């Protein structure tokens, strides 16, 4: 979605969105100098809003949490890959 739709659906204002993109909390796809956001970006913005508004996390804290979360999801992805490699093997063992 384009930036206007993203602002409308996330209820962010333009300076805040720009600051988040600047900080690389959100990484839109840039094509021909225009930014496009995905549904995942919208959900991520929502998470940042939860952290800042409901949980009282400050900007430095948000940066650290996002960094750790990105590692957590990376690890989950790796574990799932390993699990998927192992699973077919188990069935052939039992057969």
């Amino acid at each position: 979605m384009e930036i206007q739709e993203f602002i409308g659906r996330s209820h962010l204002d333009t300076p805040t969105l720009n600051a988040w993109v600047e900080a690389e909390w959100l990484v839109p796809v840039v094509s021909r100098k225009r930014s496009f956001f995905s549904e995942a970006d919208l959900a991520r913005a929502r998470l940042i809003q939860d952290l800042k508004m409901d949980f009282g996390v400050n900007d430095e804290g948000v940066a650290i949490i996002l960094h750790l979360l990105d590692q957590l999801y990376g690890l989950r992805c790796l574990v799932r890959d390993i699990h998927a490699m192992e699973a077919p093997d188990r069935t052939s063992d039992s057969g």
Partner: protein
Amino acid sequence: MAADPYTTLGVKKDATQDDIQKAYRRLAKRLHPDLNPGNKTAEDKFKEVTAAYDLLGDPDKRARFDSGEIDAQGSERPRQQQYYRDFADQGGWSAYTNSSGFSDFGEFAGSEDILSEIFGRQGRAGRRRRGQDVRYHLDLSFLDAINGGKQSIILPDGATLEVNIPPGTRDGQVLRLKGKGRPGVGDGPPGDALIEISVLPHPYFTRKGDDIYLDLPISLKQAVLGAKVKVPTPSGVVTAAVPKWSNTGRVLRLKGRGAPRPDGSKGDEYVKLMLMLPQKPDPALEAFVAQWQPVADIPRQSMGV
């Protein structure tokens, strides 16, 4: 949400606003789905806790609840959006995924080091196993998707993967590159690369199925007298005849000017005419219209006004 919000948050009826906020934050960090991706029951509980906090966290709402003016129902925050974990936890690598939490184990995910270590420990080393499929995401411009061609993806390890985009590729389509996934274990064959395509929007074309839709501005003179006009299509500019006395909304069909289909045929382009007055006020036109005596013309007749 029927439960008592005080019970949900685990606070006493006379708790201070500060206590309520603390109780909420303590629960929320354990229950927020994005912070607890492995906990599948967290989401429902988190909703309950958030609803309770929406009620008790606001002193006005809390007072009205205490006096029985409002009940625990209806205080739930509307939350239609999906959680971030629904995307981040789909199994693919995204722009955000970060491997630094395990980069000291070897190279990137799926590297022989970590896998052989894990499987080796279980006495599986040296087995023959097909390599894993790897999923990638590729954003294509509207025209690149329709016209096809070669695109390259930069892989996390810096290598480049050439992808042949078939003409007419659709948003959401998954292309499979055989043998371009992770290497097999032992002498097993490599896996495939699965590339999920997102097609970015175009400033003036839209696509429905294999057909292309376009709003085409035409001048007043072209609309009244008819004209040959140039029309953009995904495969280049063509000339189309605008019939005399064409109104806004009239649709011209350009056969075979849409998206290519796998069987070699093509969809059509539908051109909707949009009558545009001159960009700058034109005194001559104003003078003409002022003295023009049209026959009775009520364009809103069908609306009864």
